[in-house]
Structure formats: C-alpha cells, structure tokens
C-alpha cells in the first residue's frame, strides 16, 4: 500500500467516467490531475448529452401532457414557445451542474487543467492549455476517459447548419417545420421527441426492421405505437441514398420498401447513427496501448490497457457507451491503481431510453437469451392492471421479469412505461443480488405506485398475481 499512496495520476477527459475516477482517486489519497477542454468537469454527458436532453425532454412531456389534458376535462391554449428562454434554462441547468463539479474538484484538491493532452511517452503528457502555453507533465499512471463523438456517414456529410448531429440539435437554434431523423436509436428518438413536442413534423428513418435495435420487441411496441401518432412518419428498412442542399431545405433520397415518396425535402436533418470512440489521441502510438476493432481501446477487467501505465474507461473502451458504465469503470480503474483487487464485472448494466413512454432494461434480455439458447421463463405484468397507471392515464406500459427456470433467479428485467428509467433500479439490484422470484414477490411494494408492477410480475411467475388472473399452467 505504501507504494501506491503517493502515486500521481492523470485523468484525461472530465466526463462522468473521468471525474468519477478523479474524485475517487483524490478520496483515496492519490495526487490527481484532471485534464479536459471545458472550463469544468462534465463532459459530453453534462454539456451536450444526457443532461440537456433530459431538460428538454421534461419540457416536451409537459407540452404533451397539457395537450392530453383535454381528455381529463382541462383545456389549455396552444403553448407559446420562447426558444431563447427555454435554451437559457437548459443552459442554466448545465452550468449549475458543471459548476458544482468544478467546486467538488477543487474541494478535493484536484489539479484541473483546461486543455488538451497528447502523449510524449507512456508516462508523459504534453498539455496544450486553453489559456495558452504548453506543459509537459509526468505521471505514474494515466487514465484515458476521452469518451466518444457522434458518428458521421462520410457520404451524407453536408457542410450546412441544416444537417445536425446530436450536439447541434441540443443547441436548439430553431424549431424547423420538418425534421428528418436518420437512425432510430435512442438518441434519434429522444431528440425527435423533443422537436415533435415543440412543433416540428418529425420523420424517422431506420435501416433495420425495428426501432431501438437490440431492445426486446415487446418493450418497443408501445413506444412505436405512440410515436406513430406524434411523428409524421417512421420508415423502417429504409436507408438514405443521397442528400442535397436546396434553398428551402435538404432534398433527401430514400430507399426502402415502405418509402412512398422517394425524394422529400426537409428543413433540417438530424444524423444520429451512433457514436465513435475518441481513441485517436495524439501521441498514442508512442505508448503500447492497443486499439481493437471499431476503434475501441483494449483493456482488461481492471481497465488496464496493454501499456501497464495506462488505463482507459468509458465510451473509449467499448459498449455500452453509457455514463453510468463509465463512472463505475472509472472507480474500478482507480481502485485497481490503488492496489485493490478489483475487476469490472457487473451482473447488469441498466439501459434507459428517455422517450415517452420510457424503455428500460437490465441483465439478460429475451432477444439475447434466444440467441444464446438460454432457457428462461418470462413473467409479464401489463400496466392496464395497475391502479397507478390508470390514475396517470398511461396504461400502455408493461413490466417483465426474466427468470432462470431452475433456480427461479431473476436474470433480467425489462420495463416500458412512464418512469421506467427510475423503476429499473430495483431490477438492477435484483439481478446484482441474485434475487429470486419469491424475494421480489414477498417484498412489500408501496401502493399505489408503478413499482408494484415489479412485485406483481414476480407473482405472475407463480400464477398468483393479485390484479390479473392468469393461473399457472402445470
């Protein structure tokens, strides 16, 4: 332990992975330098990702509900949208959070350098500071947390503000009359939802036969149904063959069996076809770090690269590219550096799509079980049988638990419905703790809440759910 206590480590990248690593390292008594081009820690997640998008999605939901309120006897006039104020509110949220992180960083006596780092060798970084000037610093260990950036399709690259990526879409410069979202993944659907609520006619094209590829189809179905109403069109099995800028928009050529109008003009286009790891770090070739397929830095379970002095965490080391995975990896890497025997080996990493309804899952999915020939038992509880869902008029949801038929252990949980993202936490805990169906069924859940659906799904497994009659076939 004495050897590790006076280590000086550098964390390159101040996103949720990088700052979690830096903070823990400082808490463990290591000397820490955190390097990031922004004024404060936060990274894409806080500046251009999770946080601003969730602020906007909150507003979108409010607008949507105000319209929906007609059904409950409350009628509002159409909302007047002050885009500048909306923007500044969103930016305020970002500023408050990142500023808070800056303070937390100072309180921990972390040396924060605003700038960009390049490798001189495995232990030395040359940092060009935003304030001007270069500095070479040598560290005992370096953690790379450089994250990812929106992927682009070179042939569809048009240098015009009419074609946006997730970053520029979040800037919210205007609400276009028509918007084409290329890519039906979670980023495209979340941002599409925001723009649709603000008044754009949104079309989505997805190359594969379903939205949110990878998620179980029964979870996607309620979302798809709702989006068919809020979006102008959803085209599956469809690709974009060409894009051309015209005076009043982008002329897009679409290919696919569902395409009625091959050429259409959209005021704006959002390209959300995935994210690419930021592994092209200058000078990385001077180290022994190895980059694997698809550009991810290769690491072992301690997040150590093939260069023993260098660790890497978060989006730059692989899927899933999610902030909470990065944070956990960051903490694991720091503990490994501090000499603890640790490994990154979670039983479940939750995924949440913040659309309306939300979709969330963790652990084993049905799709995956099928693919791997995993014998499972699935118990579903439809929200139509939930009192709480009824009171908020959102009965399209569904909660399902995936069990090992022998041990009755919870292997995975999937939820679609309002607030699914918050509900999934119980599922993650159940999978991590190796909870059994009985454990969940016997745990008292508060009434009336949506969390009861988790308990009742476990009861469905035994054929004894209070609120649905579905006796066990024996």
């Amino acid at each position, binding site marked *: 332990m004495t050897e590790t206590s006076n280590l000086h480590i550098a964390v390159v990248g101040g996103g949720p992975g990088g700052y979690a690593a830096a903070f823990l390292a400082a808490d463990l008594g290591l000397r820490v330098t955190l390097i990031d081009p922004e004024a404060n820690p936060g990274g894409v997640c806080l500046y251009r990702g999770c946080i601003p998008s969730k602020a906007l999605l909150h507003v979108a939901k409010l607008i949507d509900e105000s319209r929906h309120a007609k059904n409950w006897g409350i009628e509002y006039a159409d909302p007047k949208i002050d885009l500048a104020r909306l923007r500044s509110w969103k930016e305020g949220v970002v500023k408050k959070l990142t500023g808070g992180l800056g303070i937390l960083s100072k309180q921990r006596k972390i040396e924060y350098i605003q700038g960009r780092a390049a490798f001189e060798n495995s232990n030395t970084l040359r940092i060009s500071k935003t304030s001007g000037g270069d500095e070479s610093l040598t560290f005992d260990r370096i953690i790379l947390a450089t994250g990812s950036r929106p992927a682009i399709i070179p042939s569809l690259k048009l240098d015009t503000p009419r074609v946006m990526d997730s970053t520029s879409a979040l800037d919210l410069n205007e609400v276009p009359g028509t918007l084409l979202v290329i890519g039906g993944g979670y980023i495209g659907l979340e941002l599409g939802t925001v723009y649709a609520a603000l008044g754009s006619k949104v079309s989505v094209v997805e190359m594969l036969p379903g939205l949110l*590829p990878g998620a179980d189809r029964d979870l996607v179905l309620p979302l798809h149904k709702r989006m068919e109403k809020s979006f102008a069109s959803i085209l599956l099995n469809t690709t974009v063959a060409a894009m051309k800028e015209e005076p009043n928009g982008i002329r897009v050529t679409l290919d696919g069996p569902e395409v009625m109008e091959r050429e259409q003009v959209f005021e704006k286009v959002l390209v959300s076809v*995935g994210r690419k790891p930021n592994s092209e770090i200058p000078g990385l070739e001077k180290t022994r770090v190895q980059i694997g397929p698809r550009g991810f830095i*290769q690491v072992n379970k301690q997040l150590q690269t093939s260069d023993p002095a260098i660790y890497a965490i978060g989006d730059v080391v692989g899927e899933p590219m999610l902030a909470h995975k990065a944070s956990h990896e960051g903490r694991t890497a720091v503990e490994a550096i501090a000499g603890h025997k640790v490994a990154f*080996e979670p039983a479940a*990493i939750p995924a949440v799509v913040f659309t309306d309804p939300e979709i969330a899952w963790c652990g084993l999915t049905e799709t995956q079980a099928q693919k791997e020939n995993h014998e499972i038992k699935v118990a579903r509880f439809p929200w139509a049988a939930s009192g709480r869902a009824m009171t908020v008029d959102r009965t399209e949801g569904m909660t399902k638990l995936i069990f090992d038929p022998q041990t009755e*252990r919870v292997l995975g949980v999937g939820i679609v419905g309002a607030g699914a993202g918050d509900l999934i936490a119980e599922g993650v805990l159940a999978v991590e703790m190796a909870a059994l169906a009985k454990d969940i069924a016997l745990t008292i859940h508060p009434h009336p809440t949506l969390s009861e659906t988790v308990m009742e799904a476990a009861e469905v497994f035994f054929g004894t759910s209070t609120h649905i009659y579905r006796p066990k076939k024996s």
Partner: protein
Amino acid sequence: MTEFKLPELGENIDQGDLVRLMVSLGASVTEGQPVMELETDKAVVEVPSSVSGTVKEIRVKEGQKVKVGQVIFTVENGTGAKVKAVEPKTPAAKAPEEKPAPVAKAPSPPVTEARPVPASPPAVSTGATDFRLPELGENIDQGDLVRLMISPGSRVSEGQPVMELETDKAVVEVPSSVTGTVKEIKVKEGEKVKVGQVIFTLEGGASAPERAKHAPVEHISEQHEARLSLQAAIQAEGKTAAQVFLPDQPPPLAPTAFAMPEQLGKVAGTEHRAPAPAAPHVRRLAREIGVDIYEVKGTGPGGRISEDDVKAFAKSLLTSAAAAGAAQGRQFAQPELPDFTKFGKVERVSMRGVRRKTAQHLWEAWTTIPHVTQQDKADITELEQLRARFAPKAQEAGGKMTVTAIALKVCASALKVFPQFNASIDMSKEEIIYKQYINIGVAVDTDRGLLVPVLHEVDKKNIVELAAELTQLSKKARDKKLLPSEMEGGTFTITNLGGVGGTGFSPIVNFPEVAILGLSRSSMEPVWMNGKFEPRQVLPLSLSYDHRLIDGADAARFLRWIAEAFEQPFLLSVQG
C-alpha cells in the same frame, strides 16, 4: 498454418491449468480475442489470441497443465480473408544457402495427404527464415538471455554460437540452426526467452512473427475488411454509388453500430458466463481473497453464494493447498525477514538461473532427506606416488590425474559392492529403486555457481579415461558450454573441496540420490605405524547419506571400503 502458443503471462509464471477453452474447431479467432481461461499460481486470467484465422487443430484439453510456449491451437488462414491479404507467407523462398528443411517444403503436398508429417516440430513451421530457440533439454522451456553474439546484418552459419543463455541448470551457448544474414533480432539481452520463440530473422523473409507483432497491420486489414463488407451490404441493398465510401475515409460504423448495444446487461468478454449468483460485495470479497466466485457452491436459495460460502471455500482451498504442500514439501516457507535497512544500506538482487535452482534444489534435498554425515580418513601416501607416476599418461589422454578422478573409480567400485548407495527412494510407492548403472556427478565450482556434470558408466571406464572426461566436462562447465543433458542421470555425487582447504564438511545429498562423498584437503599427519609415528599423507572423507535407506553401520562400512581402496589401490582390481 499458424500456431498460437501460450504467451508469457508474467514474472515467474511459466505454466497454468487450463480452466476453459473459449474456441472450438472451425471457429474463427481474431487477434486480441480471449481464447482461454488459465489458472496460474497468481490468478485466473483470460488469455487473448495473438493470431487470427480459423481454428484448425486444438492441442490441449481443459484441465490440463499448459506451459508458456506450448502450442494451444493452430489456425488456418486460407479462408479467413482477414490477415492473409497482408501477409506474404513464402518462407521457403528466402535464405538460399539454407537447405530447405523437409518440413518447410511440405506446404503444398500435404494438402492432399491425410497427414502432413506428424513430427513436424513447431519451430520450423515458418521455414528457414527465422531462428527459434531450440529444445535445450528435459523440462527446460526458457532461459535468461545473457549475451547475444550476433547483430543485424551479421552472417551466421549453422552451428555457429549465437547466444549465451542461462537456464535453471546452466549457462549454455546456443548454436544457430540456420545460415544467412541476420535481418532483425527479436530479443534483448537480459530478457527471458522461451523454447520456440523467434530469436532473429534472416534477410529477405517477411516472416510470420512480424504479423503478430505489428498490430497496426492487422488493424488496417480489419478496417479494410469492414469497409468491404459494408460496401457489399450496401450494394446488396441496391444502393447508389454515392454511398460507396471513399477508401481513404474512415469506415463508417457498421449497420448495427447505431443499435442500442444488445448485450447491455453483460460485459464484453463475459458473455459466456451468466453472472454468479452472489451479491456485488460477495463477488468483490472473493476477488480480494483470490477465490474464483464461479467455483464456489452457494448454499443459499437458488444457489446464492453468501459471504460465508466464499470464506468456507477459501478455507478449504487453504487446507488442501497446505496438505498438498506438506505432501510435496514444496513450500518455501520462511519466517518473515526483519527490515535490514534499519541497520544499514542493503542491496536486493533477484536470484537468477543457477542460484535460484540451487536454492530450490538444496532446500528440497535438505527438507526431504534425513541427513547423517560419516567422517573417515584415508592414507593416500602410496596412492600419491602412483598418481605422480601415471600423471603423464592421463595428460596424454587430455586429462589430469586428480584425486577426484581416482575417487570416481573408487566410488564406482564401492557402489557395486554396496548397491543401496546407488539407489533412490520412492516414498509414494514405498519402494527402493536400485539402479543398474553407475553414473557419478562431480560438483564443479564456476563463477555462475555450483554445477554438477555427470560422468556416465563410470564403472566401465578406466582412471585415465575418467580423468580425461572429467577435465573436459569441468572445462565445459566453466566455459558455460555444459549442456543441461550433461548434468542429468547421476546416481551418486562427489564433491571435492580439497583445492580450497578445510578438514571436513557435511555435504548435502544430491536428491534423488541417496549419498554424496565429500573430499577435503589432504595433509601430512603423523600416523602410528609399525610401533612409531610416521608422516603420512591423509585424505579426510565425509560421506553424507539418506538415513531413511542407509543405516549408520552400512555407511561406516561403505566409507571404510572407500578409504581402504584409496590406501591399497590394488584392491580396486581385486574387488572393484
């Protein structure tokens, strides 16, 4: 065909138990992909492949011990469009001086044959273009590279010594098996090198190892492959040329790339294992105390593993390990050392090669064998006269008529008369192994430490022959040319410290032998003879023996026999 060998896993790890194989015949592997799980003394590790291709043959089984450098599987690259394109593999084409080894030629014909030369050793598979560390002897799979005797551009010919290697047993000069001009040297002095490892390549060969080393090549080819497959996919979808990506642009993400990651619940590399049924803190505890959670049987509902289960499992491991350790007597148990730096400056030097082996071996011998040392003295006054007389004869034969050389003959004769001194004990079977051959080792002091070359069939050689052979072996040992095989097979050992001095000592039996004879410096002593003291030259003898097999009286008789043989050399021809 390329072989994947168990790569170096870390300091002092030269083997492990194969817990799980993650590849099967016909599967395609890519560089960096984990292919096996190996349990070493230190941990269970996932071993990534260093080769790409389609698995053709698997040479190991789960549960087996595998050694660093051992071939795990072979891959065939023909179909795997991956690496092949960038790897011009024409090994036999270069090194015109080198007569093509029979195997190097093999590639084309064997395709039709059912069995391509089964004996084809791994080392030659890349043909004559590189030189790999050859087999050095039984149980020797690596060594420390002490000195390289070649440099890039220098000529080597077959048989020419190219490196000095320190193995556990000795420092040896390793001769080249190839002829040509050295192109690239793949090892550094001070490094550990393993049998089969490429030492250098010859001019003109883009040899296989290069591919393994230069990951970028692999990377580019993979990108290129991805691009090609994407293009094909696009065209298959009937897309326009506008979507065919320019070759110098980074390849766009594959179609699935913008899918939500499918295996969100699982972590890369662990797909094959369902998470262990244990709470996170229990899993961490297991890791901290070095227990593989997957080995622990949970006693909770649904097989859930509790903290207590992990502790109980660890305890059972410890007891069984201790039992095994006690049975084998292999543990280097040592009380904790004080902090010497409190008393002054110290230097810590790692024990290398011969010293490490000596320490291990003598510790084993000392802890296994109940030692007793019997002392005696031999009057060698007459023998010395004979020795002086026959010295020129030995010199003619290229040897030196030393006391040790004579002792060899004396001991060989004694061992015939007392076969229990030419034996070993097999405690596990409760048997005594009597050897029908007499091979005697002689301890040689070298600047690298103690080495024991073995003279074979000593009983069938005369003293002049033995003197010549001993001289030759001692020189080899001092010149670091002694081969490990020349130190094997001994049945008895002689150690002579007379050259240095001393009046007696307790040698340690060279396990698994059962006795060792120590000679000290002979000196003139007054000996009571024929009613008066006479100055006689007296040689002190110290015989250490394994008391499990040899009784004290037998030892006394054996040593007396030897002393008398020294005193009356004629006895040798009568009784020996």
